[in-house]
């Protein structure tokens, strides 16, 4: 089959690879119909996520048709149309028992490696390096889905691929980013990053009762989308020296009640602090660049919530812990527990209260995936989201 493979820094290549096989009894094989390039795939693309190996198949947002099931998969049959959550979860450990599926204790075969780096291991993830298991990803014609009796979500009739696809990651991720802020009606929420997750976080914050959502980015067309499609008040950090000061002004000096970081480890910005961060990244003094997160912390109101859903992988330097402690901030974060959001969010989609398709700007074939990365990464052609279709 054909698959999009990571061949090194800024190098993707669609290659002929062996077809996936059933390896465990709870596996299924999915023939992919639609898959997407995630913002977090760009971290892989840039070579800043550790434990990637040349030839790894990328992709953790995908959906398609069941073409084979293992002996222990009784709830799926060949021909079922499913969308697959990016965290691999067994459904039976104590984390899965309480719905924290991204913390599954049985889905990362390389947990020892993750423990070395993070203290404890989290779940396995498709196509996201070997620290998260080294599973083949879904930017391919077919993919093996472990624990298929627990993960895949059957797509109801009448719902299109484009409506359902983002249930695999970014829609639940944006939603969880807002949900874990415990938003009360009337509150002001600030969202860093107007990529797809940021757009969904803005929309979710409104769904959860926020009266104002302020979005921060520097890409004009993304700010326009946040304004026009998601309803945010937008703020371009290229035009403003001091983002926390601007947020103070917008909130009567109080600061946003909740701040959501939808940027993650490769934040961009201006000023001497940002330059210092870049130097630290380049010299490997830190693995992650916490520029947006630092702003989110400093801007948040006293006793407010800082929600982190942008991806971080390692260590940061100059972390404002004094601001967090003395001002009683709450940090809430995590890889998304996708499984628990799929049905409720599908309900919203079917009721017409949420249309996740507004972010799609590019539709191309799997064959063109490398070009898709180039466009998405360089924000060419006003690119917000690339959906790859497999014929």
């Amino acid at each position, binding site marked *: 089959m054909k698959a999009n493979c990571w061949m090194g820094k800024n190098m993707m290549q669609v290659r002929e690879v062996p077809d996936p096989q059933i*390896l465990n009894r*709870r*596996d299924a094989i999915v023939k992919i119909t639609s898959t997407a390039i995630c913002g977090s795939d760009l971290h892989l693309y840039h070579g800043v996520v550790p434990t990637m190996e040349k030839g790894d198949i990328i992709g953790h947002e995908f959906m398609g048709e069941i073409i084979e099931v293992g002996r222990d998969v009784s709830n799926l049959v060949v021909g079922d149309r499913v969308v697959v959550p990016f965290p691999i979860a067994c459904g039976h450990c104590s984390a899965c028992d309480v719905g924290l599926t991204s913390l599954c204790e049985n889905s990362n075969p390389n947990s*020892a490696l993750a423990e070395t780096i993070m203290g404890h291991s989290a779940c396995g993830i498709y196509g996201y390096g070997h620290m998260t298991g080294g599973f083949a990803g879904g930017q391919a014609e077919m993919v093996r889905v472990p624990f298929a009796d627990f993960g895949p979500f059957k797509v109801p009739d009448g719902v299109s691929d484009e409506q359902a696809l983002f249930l695999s990651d970014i829609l639940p991720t944006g939603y969880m980013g807002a949900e874990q802020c415990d938003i009360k009606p009337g509150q002001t929420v600030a969202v860093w990053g107007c990529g797809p997750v940021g757009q969904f976080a803005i929309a979710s914050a409104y769904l959860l009762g926020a009266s104002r959502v302020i979005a921060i980015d520097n890409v004009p067309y993304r700010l326009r989308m946040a304004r026009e499609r998601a309803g945010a008040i937008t703020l371009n950090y290229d035009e403003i020296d001091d983002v926390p000061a601007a947020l103070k002004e917008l909130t009567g000096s109080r600061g946003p009640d909740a701040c959501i970081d939808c940027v993650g480890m490769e934040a961009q910005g201006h000023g001497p602090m940002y330059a210092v961060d870049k130097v630290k990244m380049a010299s490997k003094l830190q693995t992650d660049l916490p520029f947006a997160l630092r702003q989110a912390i400093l801007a948040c109101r006293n006793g407010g919530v800082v929600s982190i859903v942008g991806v971080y992988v390692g260590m940061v330097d100059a972390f404002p812990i004094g601001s967090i402690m003395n001002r009683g901030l709450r940090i809430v974060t995590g890889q998304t527990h996708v499984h628990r959001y799929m049905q409720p969010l599908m309900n919203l989609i079917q009721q017409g209260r949420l249309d996740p398709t507004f972010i799609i700007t590019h539709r191309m074939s799997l064959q063109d995936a490398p070009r898709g990365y180039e466009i998405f990464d360089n924000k060419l052609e006003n690119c917000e989201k690339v959906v790859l279709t497999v014929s």
Partner: protein
Amino acid sequence: MREKQEPHEGSFQRFDRTASSYELHEVMHEDGASQDGRMQHGQRRSERGGDGGIATALPDTAAGRHYQPTPLRDPDQLVNSGIAWFSIMLGVTQIVAPDVLARLIGVRPSANTRTIMRAIGARAVATGFGLLSHTKSTPWLWTRFAGDVVDLSMLGTGIGRRADDRQRAARAALAVGGVAALDFYAASRNQRTERARLEANGFASPEETVSGPLTYDNAAARGGGAEAATPNGLRGVLGDDAFAATMAGSKKVRHAVTINRSAQELYEFWHDFENLPKFMRHLDQVTTQEGGRSHWVTRGPGGAKVEWDAEIVADVPNELIAWQSLPHADVRNAGTVRFIPVPGGRGTEVHVELDDMLPGGSLGAAVAKLFRSDPRHQVRDDLKAFKSVMEAGEILYANIAEKQQAERDDFRRAKSDAEMGEVRG
């Protein structure tokens, strides 16, 4: 416009100091211990502690105790045994070839030097064996240091007059001085460690320190026969002598994992030793026999079978299983597994202690090679696999390469398809 802005309904709850609107969460323990019950608990503790005591709830038997991990490998021990062997070797040389050594240090051999040299040698051999005996190291090390000082002073008196004799003597003094410094360092380090251990326990009697798995003092978590599940449970079951015999000179590895299943389910699965190869990757097959005996098969490099018999030496339903190889076995090993329910229905802690295979002839050495460099990794991986089997019903392969690797593996290939299928799909 309204004169007074009403808060959104149900959105903000106003905090009222006078009405005690903020309630402290009263924690009820799982066994339903009332306030009285918990007071009693506190009183019991205060009686033990002698003064005052704690009146709050301490649900864990380990609460208020000092945790002292039993060292798996004493870091001092390596230095000490190095010194011991050096001491013995030098001592033997001094006894066997006193003249050679005398010349080496610039002393003219005579009947007199021979006697002194042999006496020093005997002393060195004695302290070496003393150190190796693994009883208290500190006095032996100080004895060595005192000997070094005596040697140095004797060196000063016995030097010949020739220039190269003096040179040799200077070199010898430097060498002895170096050894003295090492002895001094080791002795004082040992003394410090011993004192620290004493001080750590100084405030607590031995029963107020804990080591190994911590148990929970919780009626709901305890299923009777709690004695065996306490720390040092194996000692309790086997008796002091048998315990000492099992563990003497052993190379222990320990690991623990929490599994989202009841202690009973886990105990029952483990108790059927024929299940062990399903998650202990180095094992080929285990067959159980009458009377708690079992026959274990693994494969050496090149596919040669290595077999031994073992027997269950302690068995407390749902709590503990201990086994060890039979005395005549080529391969010696012993293991204990404890199942400790976590309060609040949060699964079961599985604590495993393996007294790893000790070399028993060439077969034993071959077996030892099978294990990865760090036996702790093997126990960790095996317990992870046990958790996967019990929770997820299978051990997940990351990719085809990993499965193929497993299939190339001698031990796994040796397993029948049916057996593999049962666990691994």
